[in-house]
């Protein structure tokens, strides 16, 4: 798919409250192109709640139900049930939530909606923190990252959330990035074509929270994939498929770039380099990455054996 094949119509209208360089805004713009206008969004408390703008105006040209922080998936369950009753179940019902509202406070509601086979798409745009309240740590914040509630760097690894979702054995889940727009577009279109619960997680490198210049958002998203810090994959009916650079890394065809390249361009990891290099922390980050990727290789290997 070429970039020019992406639909022209803008469903996310210009003039939002998003920060300049906002990855969530970029991701949602692409997602909405893939979904089309027959879509109802549920947006819990997160940056996107504010991005919409001030009543009585909004910048999303689809119906939107704003919702309490922890309840986007439950509200989406209700909307999905109503659409079925109204004979409109070809309407995309989509929850668009941050990592806080997904990994932490929203996990119960999401898990329930997935287990009930709710017909909807749940999209988590993950900027690895509670950004709307000003950069506090979340269950998605990676090891060693500075946030306003982990001033010395987070001491715990982030949750392996995609594995948690995989454990629900839903028809489709994927990991994507707005730095790979065609890949994201295709994943949303795939999800939209399947009935049942679908989950897509999009890495959203946030200039304000991760502390990097606002013109580097897309570049950093690419670097995340190139170092293996983020992955591009899909899992359909329990079968994993890796995409693009992630596939090449998995198969050993391309070496992942050193993780330090990714860490040292982000202010939230500055304390790992200045005033002294924190070898211990960087090693732990590298170790965990190896564990995750070895597990991916094992999972894919077992698939090939027909297990």
């Amino acid at each position, binding site marked *: 798919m070429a970039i020019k094949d992406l639909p022209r119509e803008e469903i996310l209208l210009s003039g939002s*409250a998003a920060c300049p360089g906002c990855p969530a805004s970029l991701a949602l713009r692409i997602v909405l192109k893939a979904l089309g*206008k*027959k*879509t*109802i969004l*549920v947006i819990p408390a997160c940056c996107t*709640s*504010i991005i*919409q*703008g*001030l*009543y009585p105006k*909004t910048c*999303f*040209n*689809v*119906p*939107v*139900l*704003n*919702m*309490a922080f*922890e*309840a986007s998936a*439950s*509200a*989406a*369950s*209700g*909307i*999905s*049930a*109503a*659409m*079925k*009753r*109204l004979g*409109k179940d070809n*309407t995309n019902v989509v929850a668009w939530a941050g990592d806080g509202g997904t990994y932490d406070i929203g996990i*119960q*509601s999401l*898990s*329930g909606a997935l*287990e*009930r086979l709710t017909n909807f798409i749940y999209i988590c745009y993950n900027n690895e923190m509670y950004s709307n309240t000003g950069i506090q740590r979340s269950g998605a914040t990676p090891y060693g990252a500075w946030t306003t509630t982990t001033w010395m760097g987070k001491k715990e690894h982030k949750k392996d959330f995609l594995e948690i979702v995989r454990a629900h054995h839903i028809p489709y889940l994927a990991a994507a990035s707005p730095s790979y727009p065609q890949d994201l577009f295709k994943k949303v279109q795939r999800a939209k074509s399947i009935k049942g619960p679908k989950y897509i997680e999009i890495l959203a490198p946030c200039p304000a929270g991760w502390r990097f210049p606002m013109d580097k958002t897309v570049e950093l998203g690419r670097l995340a994939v190139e170092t293996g810090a983020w992955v591009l994959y899909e899992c359909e009916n329990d079968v994993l498929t890796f995409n693009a650079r992630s596939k090449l890394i998995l198969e050993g065809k391309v070496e992942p770039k050193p993780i330090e390249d990714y860490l040292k361009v982000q202010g939230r990891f500055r304390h790992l380099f200045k005033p002294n290099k924190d070898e211990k922390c960087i090693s732990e980050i590298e170790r965990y990455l190896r564990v995750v990727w070895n597990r991916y290789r094992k999972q894919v290997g077992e698939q090939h054996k027909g297990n």
Partner: protein
Amino acid sequence: MKIVMDTGNRIAAKAVQMARPEVIAAYPITPQTVVVEQLAKYVQSGELDAEYICVESEHSAMAASVGASAAGVRVFTATSSQGLLLMHEMLHWAALARLPIVMVNVNRAIAPGWNIWADETDSVSQRDTGWIQFYCSSNQEIFNTIIQAFKLAESREIQLPVMVNYDAFILSHTSMPVEVPEQKDIDEFLPKFKPFWKLDTENPVTHGNMLSQEDHMGMRYDMHLAQENAKRLIPQIAKEWKDKFGSYQGELIEEYRCEDAEFIITAMGAIGAEAKVSVDELRGEGYKVGLARVRVLRPFPEEEIQRIAKGKTLLVIDRNISVGSGGGVFTEVKSALYGFCDSPVYGFVAGLGGKDVTYEDIEDMVRRVMDKKAKQTEWWDLKEIGGS
């Protein structure tokens, strides 16, 4: 019309089935569980054509109800005590979103100390959420009120969610005979839901984005006006029901032998029903006693209380408490009468945690007031509790 003999919960489920909601999102909690079980049976046997969502918590039950109602269909859910408290945030959400959700709440005491018996603190403590609140005293009233609640909630001048409360076990699990009308007559009384706003891809709007200070205040004021409208619409709908189906339990307040009374018991729910027996007993002894049974706590029927209280002594019995202040009905009655008349008002807190309150207890309370022995507020039949 047929007569059915069944428990409050099962009668409630029957009323809901006949009201034809299209989405039900529910979670079990004693002593409401039978309501959601019976509704699941109706749906799964085809007697109720609806989507039934087995949500994973009460907060999710109300969130799913908000989603479905916002999408433009009639919605129902049910809960009790802990569940009601868990969905507190979402109660506010439903009301501010002006969604006509109807919910049954079975009044049960709040934990810790697991106590599943009758106590109204759960719903009375939610009276600030913007929901209209009814308190029922009989299974017939439960049936009638639930159907009337949908009609009320869905009317243009209201557009607010409605909570129908009844006491744990005393009503929820007690069988009483109930007149059940024909489905076609219920359909005439309660036509299909027509939403006043909805999530519609043909007309995209955003609900609930950022709101300024003045606009927030304006939204709140409109809700307040809607509650004021309910003071007019509740009697109107009750009368429509009476004309069509014959049964009638009163409007905002049910007045029983109040006209020439000197002492008026003011109570809700099961205690309200029990008080009728006390009134009859005391009248039999020659005392001029009446009962003002508060059916509606929100909107608070100020004007009715003012009218009823003039020149009388009021005796309020609350099966709920706001510690540090007083019983909910008591404080609101006093507030309604302040500056209007100087009728004496006594407040009894009784029956918390399901402690039994019999017609003899109520008679004794009235006698204390009549004999000028009662303090302004009293906690009835208090037991000294433990410590070693």
